[in-house]
Each structure stands twice: as structure tokens, then as C-alpha cells.
């Protein structure tokens, strides 16, 4: 059952280095000609590390419209370059605007897909990896609890919504303004429920000896192997190469 160390998968620390590298590049650069190959590299990395890229995108399909809208807004409101679409002599979309819009979409895409790579690791291993990197356990544990709380909040919201509907409120039939107000009513029980759970969880943590000593032991130890080092070296080369290429003197 219990294994003294985890084998067979990349160490979460090597994935973290890769993800940090990819997302840093996505934040620093805003040219489609760099972001496009970076997006492709991110997808390849995600596929290689068996991250459910397509599944994640399908789950986020509602948000994708928001990102698309952000891209369009950037395209319309950013001036400069050659006009591409004109209306009564006013440039609606310019080449610079389009470039910015595409950049924003690619940037968000890279960050989301690279973040998805971390979901291929067990959160417990991520905590352990951070802890072995001398990150204080309390901080690493807070990350795990935060991850745990997201589905809890969703469950709490669903329960409250169901309770409301069981009392005869048919949300889909309400006018928009009333519906928004009704969603506001959900907030109080939602927050109260989450706070109650947080209090109970803190009791459980405290009564199981949390922070009994400045350090703690672990029943599993992560071991970086050759593949992990290779992945981290590739990620670092990718990042430093991109920076050197970008900041070297002369045109890009």
C-alpha cells in the first residue's frame, strides 16, 4: 500500500519549474510571433505530461467566450498600424489592435494550459515537493486547503441553490433583475456554510498536532531523477533562450 517514495511520474517540482517558465514567458512577451510557438510548445508539453488539455478547455468553454471578448475589445480599442476594418472612414480594427487581441488570447491560453499541467500531480505531492524545497509547510498546506475549498464552495452553492428551488423558486423563469437579486440571497448561507466548514476543519487540523514542532516528518519522500533534471534544464534553457533572443541588441 504505502510506498516510501513516488515513482513513475515526473516530480511535481520539475513540472512546477516548467509551468513557471512557460507562464513567465507568456506574461513577459506580448508578440503573437513569440506567443504562438510558445502556445504550441505548451500544448506539446501538456500532451507529453498527459494533462487533459482538451478536457480542460471544454470545461472552461463558458470562460473562453470571455477571453474571446477580451481579445475583440483589445483589437477594437487599440489604435496603431494599418486599418483592417473601417466604418465610415473610422478604423475599427487595426493591425496593432488585432496583434494585441491575439496576444491576449494566446497569453491566457498558455497560462491556463500550463497551469493544467500541475493538475496531473497529486496535491499532496505538490505540498511535499514545496516542503522539500524548504517552503514552510504552513504555506504549502494552505495551498492544499485552498484547493480543497474550491469544490467545497461549489458544493455549498449547489446545495443552497437546490434548497431554494425546492421551495418553489424557479430561477430560470425569473426576470433578470430578480434573478440577480436572488443570487445575492445565496451569498449569506454560502459564506456562513463555508465559514462553519473552515472552523471545523481548523479544529480537526489543530487536534491532529498541526505545528506541534517547527519541523515535521513525512511518510513519503519525493526523489528527483534524471528525467526530472532534464525537464527542468529544458525549461530553463527555453526561458533563458527566449529572454536572450528578446533582449539582445538589434531587431527581433
Amino acid at each position, binding site marked *: 500500500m504505502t510506498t516510501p517514495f513516488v515513482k513513475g511520474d515526473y516530480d511535481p517540482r520539475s513540472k512546477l519549474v516548467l509551468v513557471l517558465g512557460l507562464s513567465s514567458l507568456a506574461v513577459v512577451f506580448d508578440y503573437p510571433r513569440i506567443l504562438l510557438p510558445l502556445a504550441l510548445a505548451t500544448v506539446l508539453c501538456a500532451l507529453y505530461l498527459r494533462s487533459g488539455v482538451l478536457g480542460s478547455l471544454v470545461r472552461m468553454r463558458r470562460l473562453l467566450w470571455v477571453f474571446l471578448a477580451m481579445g475583440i475589445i483589445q483589437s477594437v480599442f487599440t489604435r496603431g498600424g494599418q486599418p483592417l476594418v473601417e466604418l465610415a472612414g473610422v478604423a475599427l480594427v487595426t493591425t496593432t489592435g488585432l496583434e494585441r487581441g491575439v496576444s491576449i488570447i494566446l497569453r491566457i491560453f498558455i497560462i491556463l494550459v500550463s497551469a493544467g499541467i500541475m493538475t496531473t500531480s*497529486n496535491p*499532496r505531492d505538490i505540498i511535499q515537493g514545496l516542503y522539500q524545497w524548504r517552503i514552510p509547510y504552513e504555506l504549502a498546506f494552505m495551498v492544499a486547503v485552498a484547493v480543497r475549498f474550491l469544490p467545497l464552495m461549489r458544493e455549498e452553492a449547489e446545495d443552497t441553490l437546490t434548497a431554494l428551488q425546492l421551495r418553489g423558486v424557479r430561477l430560470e423563469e425569473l426576470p433578470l433583475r430578480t434573478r440577480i437579486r436572488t443570487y445575492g440571497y445565496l451569498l449569506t448561507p454560502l459564506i456562513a456554510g463555508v465559514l462553519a466548514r473552515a472552523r471545523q476543519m481548523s479544529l480537526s487540523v489543530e*487536534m491532529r498536532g498541526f505545528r506541534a514542532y517547527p519541523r515535521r516528518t513525512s511518510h513519503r519522500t519525493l526523489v528527483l531523477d534524471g528525467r526530472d533534471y532534464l525537464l527542468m534544464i529544458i525549461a530553463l534553457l527555453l526561458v533563458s533562450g527566449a529572454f536572450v533572443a528578446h533582449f539582445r541588441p538589434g531587431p527581433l
Partner: protein
Amino acid sequence: MTIPLRARNLGYSFAEHLSPLFSGVDLGVERGEVVAIVGPSGSGKTTLCHCLSGIIPLIRGGVMEGEVLLDGTPTRALRPPEIAQKLGIVFQDPEAGLFFPVVEDEVAFGPENLCVAPVEIHRRVGASLAAVGMDAFAERNPHRLSGGEKQLVATAAVLSLQPDVLILDEAMSQLDDRGRDMMKDMIRAMRDRGKAVLLVEHDPENLDVADRVLMLHDGELATFDGNWDGFPRSVPGGSAR
């Protein structure tokens, strides 16, 4: 020899101006003894568990009178991690105490905090899960288990601390017959190993493991006469959480 868990003239009220939920409670749980506490809903059983386990006054507020001695030391003088090395408490709601995505990590959390050596943690995780019949679930995600299974995992997570005193606050409420039998076997095994067990229950069928049964009612703790017919089921307006 000191009594592992003792309450002297224990009383509690939620605030100064409110009447006490219970008062004058004297209780001792000896080594190798299982004591059960019954009482109507809202009578203060869970709050009493919190007082006995040091949660009150160390973590939760309110006004606590008297004292609780854990192995002769007042709980007021201890820190929660120090209490965790001697006393384990299993809460009514197992969901709130499970935060890792793998059962064995959940069970290992306590011993890891107490700096137990990894080899010993492995042994404890296996033994604790086996004690509640959940050894086949070591690699499973606790959040995808049934309510009863979660209760058993939460119990194993406390057993792995190897406490001398175990408090079970309605820890069998969601269990099926098999789970209840496993839990009772575990309680008997704890008693045989000289541990002190305090059991808060509302189901008469679960009291057969207890050596003594007490009833908390109207703010007083007294010996239960076994008369379930006249047992008050709830306290009007009672809220003891």
C-alpha cells in the same frame, strides 16, 4: 496512578450573561474503560466533548468553569499539539476533517505532525486503517467515499496518533451494520490495550460496548438508568454546538 481524563466541577456557558449549558460535571474515565454519554439533541454533548478535549477554552471561546485534567495536567496549561499527543477526538461531521486527496495521506497527517519516523508512520497508517476495516481504501480519494466510509477514515486518522484517550462524538451515526461492528471491535481493542474511551451516542444499540452509561440532561450529568421509553429526544430551543 492518575486518571487519564478527568473533569472537575466542569461548567460551560456560551457567554457571561447566558445561563450555563451544563454545570458541576464531575467525570473520570479510567484506563481500560469505555464510558458512554447519552442525552437529547441540544443538551450539550458535543460542547462537553469540546471541553474535555481542550478545544474549549484553547481554541473555541465561551465561559468554562472548573477544570479538565489530562493525565493530571489541566488542559488550560497545554497547547493543542500537546493535547494531540495524548487525546484524539473524532468529530460528528467527518467531511470537515478530510482535506487530502488520498486516504493514506489523510491518516498519515497526524503522525507526520508529531515527527514520527516514516517507517513507523507506514506501520501506523496500515494498522489504523485495518482497525476500522478500511485497509483496502488506502489509495482512494476520501471525498469520493460514502458518509460511513468517511467516518471510518476520519476515525483511522485519529487512531494513527495512538492516543491514550479517545473521544468519539457520534462517530457511528452514518455507519452501516458492518461499519458499526468494525467500530465496536476497535473500541473493545482500545479498551483491552488500556486506553480510555469516551463515547457520545444517541443510538441505544451502540451502547453495548460501554462499561458505564451517563446521561447529560438539564445541564447535569448523571448515571443513565437505561429507560429509553422516557428518554427526552430533544431540548426545546437547545443548541449545543
